């Protein structure tokens, strides 16, 4: 599998260096308007991008290039970057750290048209369902977003918000203001590009809705708590410090960061979904394995014969666990067996059985503990006493567990 990291690295290089995804000094309107924590993590922190999300971005860009000729023949301009010069206000302070950029896929300034091209891995019904979830949450949080009919425009609110911002224009002198624009959606369902059984897709989507969306909602509430009721996200002002705060937050909560990494690591593009508890035979969670196997069988993702063969191996592993001497003698054999088992599972399963992260334990740190160094936000060094206290807490936690 040596080609996997090569592909990932290439994608990372292509997308992180040349586009806005890997830049800290610009903020895209859709990220700013949408306030989806995953997006911040994905785009503000280039390191948190999974190979799968990179692949999807790349795919979207390739699709844009693919239709470029068609639009250019109609006098559209490809990927015009509109740069805003905004004053961000946060708690009375004016900040100018980050440029706001907007990148409509195609623009026709004569006719004042904006084209936003969207590709998706969800079916239209699923997009509507997820978008409704997000809209409901945002509504509950009193976050002003443009109202739109999900059934009419089956896109996520971030896309709508971005297009509204393009329509409003960015208030930079000399730049075109897109006053009256029309919106064209080209919607492409990428599902048929993957050779995946439908049952698996359904299972993944179920997992997404049951596990991933609640986490997103929880995080949105957390963001709301941080910024209080005055937090507004209209299309002209937003809280820059969300970016800083999340950056800091990521540094200090590796568990949740890893969770996001796993959550965004869709099994379709990523060859290695996380199965952390299945790596060591002596203390592998055999009950969990058994549960997963049964689920796989019930969902029809593995045949009965595969199930039986894997279950037999599982029983052997169980016996191995009981007999340490046998384990030592047959270590290589057991190891190979386990690797086969894990590979079989990885081929068939995504992390739908993962426990939710212990989000209550996350401590949100002060954003002003960050400083800018060489254009990047880095953690300010703690003083010695704080480091000692942190060490003491760490020791107590380790020995308590």
């Amino acid at each position, binding site marked *: 599998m040596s080609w996997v990291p090569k592909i990932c690295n290439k994608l990372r290089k292509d997308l992180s260096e040349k586009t806005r995804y890997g830049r800290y000094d610009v903020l895209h309107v859709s990220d700013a308007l949408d306030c989806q924590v995953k997006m911040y993590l994905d785009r503000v922190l280039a390191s948190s991008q999974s190979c799968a999300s990179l692949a999807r971005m790349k795919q979207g860009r390739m699709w844009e290039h693919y239709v470029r000729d068609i639009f250019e023949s109609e006098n559209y301009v490809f990927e015009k970057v509109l740069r805003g010069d905004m004053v961000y206000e946060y708690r009375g302070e004016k900040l100018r750290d980050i440029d706001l950029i907007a990148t409509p896929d195609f623009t026709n300034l004569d006719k004042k048209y904006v084209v936003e091209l969207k590709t998706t891995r969800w079916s239209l019904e699923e997009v509507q369902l997820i978008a409704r979830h997000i809209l409901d949450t945002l509504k509950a949080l009193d976050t002003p977003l443009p109202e739109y009919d999900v059934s009419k425009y089956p896109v996520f609110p971030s896309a709508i918000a971005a297009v509204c911002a393009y329509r409003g224009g960015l208030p930079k002198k000399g730049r075109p203001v897109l006053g009256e624009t029309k919106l064209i959606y080209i919607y492409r369902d990428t599902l048929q590009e993957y050779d995946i059984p439908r049952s698996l897709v359904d299972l993944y989507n179920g997992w997404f809705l049951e596990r991933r969306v609640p986490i997103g909602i929880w995080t949105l509430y957390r963001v709301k708590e941080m910024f209080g009721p005055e937090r507004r996200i209209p299309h002209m002002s937003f809280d820059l410090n969300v970016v800083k705060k999340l950056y800091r937050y990521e540094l200090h909560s590796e568990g949740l960061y890893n969770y996001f990494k796993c959550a965004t690591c869709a099994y379709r593009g990523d060859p290695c979904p996380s199965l*952390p*508890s299945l*790596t*060591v*035979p*002596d*203390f592998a969670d055999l009950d969990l394995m058994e549960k997963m196997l049964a689920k796989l069988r019930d969902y029809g993702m593995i045949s009965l014969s595969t199930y039986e063969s894997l279950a037999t191996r599982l029983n052997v592993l169980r016996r191995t666990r009981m007999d340490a001497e046998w384990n*030592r003698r047959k*270590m290589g054999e057991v*190891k190979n067996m386990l690797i086969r088992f894990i590979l079989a599972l990885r081929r068939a399963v995504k992390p739908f059985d993962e426990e939710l992260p212990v989000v209550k334990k996350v401590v949100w740190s002060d954003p002003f503990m960050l400083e800018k160094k060489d254009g990047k936000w880095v953690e300010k060094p703690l003083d*010695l*006493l704080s*480091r*000692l206290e942190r*060490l*003491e807490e*760490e*020791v*107590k936690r*380790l*020995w308590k*567990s």
Partner: protein
Amino acid sequence: MEVVIEKLKRLKKRLKEKPEDREEIEREIEELEKELEAIKIFEKRGATEDVMAVVKGIYEAYKLGTIDAVTAFYALLGVAYYHIVPLTPRDIKRLKEAFGIAV
């Protein structure tokens, strides 16, 4: 655990009483941080509580001076090997650094 906690308390006290020893204290803190990071590697790689207990036991023995750094390092490697804790080469490098073994 008591050894480490005591050391931390001692360092705190020293920091308050003798601020001129700051550099030396910082060095000791860095060492402790590295050692704890090394222990946490096992946790990250999916070691169970039983294995973690062994790892912590080895670390405690090292801190008490019962075993030296090299023995502690190889003992930890042995634990990883026996229990098939999937340590990466980078993890092993970090372990070496934490126990002050030449890389």
